[in-house]
């Protein structure tokens, strides 16, 4: 069964059609790639799925339920989490606090209890702390827990974003160019990491990535966008063999990445 389905999704910004008539589904447990040249509309699709933008037309279903008009926080509650292409950490907070904010969702307590700092709050706070450190450990960030988020090197900031998203206990994880700015060794390591957490946390993953080696390594299924419309869809081989894709994007890009 598809965990997520987009049906004829369209988004316009004034005159710009960022994506048009996009339909696809992601089977549960799969890693799917979403690729396409710059400005193709990939991030826009993430923003539509996560409720950051509202749809111009179309519907989105998550585990069979219509989620088209839900708010981001409601979608998170259903089990959708994401990272951002242009990293959006809470920059002035510590690495630990960044993850804590995400963990908080799993251990709720009432406002009144918080103000009185009842014993139940204290024990939940301890649990929050414990869980947050576990997620940091899972991403290899334990040593940096006390550092300010914006003091981390770029690569670690991306990992922290992933840690924060995982801490929401999602069923569907959307990763927006997690390997951006990484060299081939780093991106290979990141690919291994993504595969590991995908299995470990029982995720379904939708991945936007320009590093074709990462995409080809991880994704069983790929959806190709160009100028907001679907160009091709299928497994890695089908997509790589598609002449349209080769012409529009993959051909040059892949060869360059391969060299």
């Amino acid at each position, binding site marked *: 069964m598809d965990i997520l389905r987009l049906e004829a999704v369209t988004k316009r*910004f*004034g005159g710009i059609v960022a994506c048009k008539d996009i339909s696809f589904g992601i089977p549960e447990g799969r890693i799917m790639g979403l690729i396409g040249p710059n400005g193709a509309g990939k*991030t826009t699709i993430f*923003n539509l799925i996560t409720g*950051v*933008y*509202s749809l111009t037309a179309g519907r989105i279903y998550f585990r069979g339920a219509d989620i088209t008009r839900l708010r981001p926080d409601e979608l998170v509650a259903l089990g959708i989490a994401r990272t*951002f292409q242009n990293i959006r950490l809470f920059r002035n907070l510590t690495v630990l606090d960044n993850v804590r904010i995400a963990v908080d969702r799993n251990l709720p307590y009432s406002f009144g209890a918080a103000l009185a700092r009842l014993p139940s709050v204290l024990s939940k706070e301890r649990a929050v702390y414990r869980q947050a450190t576990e997620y940091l450990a899972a991403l290899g960030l334990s040593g940096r827990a006390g550092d300010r988020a914006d003091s981390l090197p770029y690569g670690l900031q991306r990992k922290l974003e992933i840690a924060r998203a995982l801490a929401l206990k999602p069923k569907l994880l959307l990763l927006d160019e997690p390997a951006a700015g990484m060299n081939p060794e780093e991106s290979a390591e990141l690919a291994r990491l993504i595969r590991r957490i995908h299995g470990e946390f029982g995720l379904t993953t939708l991945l936007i990535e320009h590093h074709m080696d990462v995409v080809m390594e991880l994704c069983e299924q790929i959806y190709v966008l160009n100028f907001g419309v679907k160009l091709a869809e299928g497994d890695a081989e089908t997509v790589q063999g598609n002449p349209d894709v080769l012409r529009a994007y993959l051909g040059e890009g892949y060869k360059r990445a391969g060299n």
Partner: protein
Amino acid sequence: MLIQTLVTGLAIGGIYALMAVGYSLVFSILNFSNFAYGSIIMLGAYVGYYLLMKAGLPLAVSVAGSVMGAAFLCYLNERMAYSTLRKRNAASLYFMISAMGTAIFLENLVYATIGSRFYAFPEIITQQNITFWGASIGVLDVFAIVFSFTAIYMLHYFLQHSRVGIAIRAASYDMQVCQLNGVNITRLVGWVFLLAGALAGLSGMFLGMKYMVYPTMGWITNKAYIAAVIGGLGSLPGAVVGGLILGVLETLVSTYVSSVIRDVFSFSLLVVLLLVLPTGLFGKYLEEKV
């Protein structure tokens, strides 16, 4: 009676529109509410009053002086209170606090040095009436309507046809792209504040003539902010329409209901509007790029 009320309403609405346009102009570029705008209007009125009454200059020259004075002060305001924040890319909260600080500083500086006295323009200017279709209409109101619309039209023309104007409009869509295309942002922002200041000077003059000149007269910009929200924050046509609507409705309320609840009415209007039409009449709901 109704015609008279409508004309008065349009006159005050025209002044609201002037102020709201000045405020929206800054908002559309720098994305923050310039709460110092009221004190620039107040200073413009003082400058105009001084030129007319103390320096004995003709009215037209005094108005011009007030416009230029306020434009300069508004420009100075940006250089001193906002430019560093702009270069630091500070959050809009910081801009708002800085603006608020400027307003408090200027208002109380006038209060502490010039004093809290109310200065009135001579009655020859403020109290003339003409009879029109049986209604007695203030000459000042007619002037306010004519001059507000002329000024707004001139601004519109400037934004549509001059190089700087086109750059300003481009920047209001996307500052970053504008910067990438080699537009000198500091110069551009300077222009925006000069223009907004000029409108402040003109509205300060009219407000001074209508209600007298005093340190806290700038507080009337509250109405301009409300007008801008009614029209849709950041939209210039919205500011004009919002100003006119607010001016006319307020005058109707204070004529036919009670002048005491006029301000409560404006506020309630704002709250109700936010509930039913959060983005205002002309607010293009911009989804910020994520």
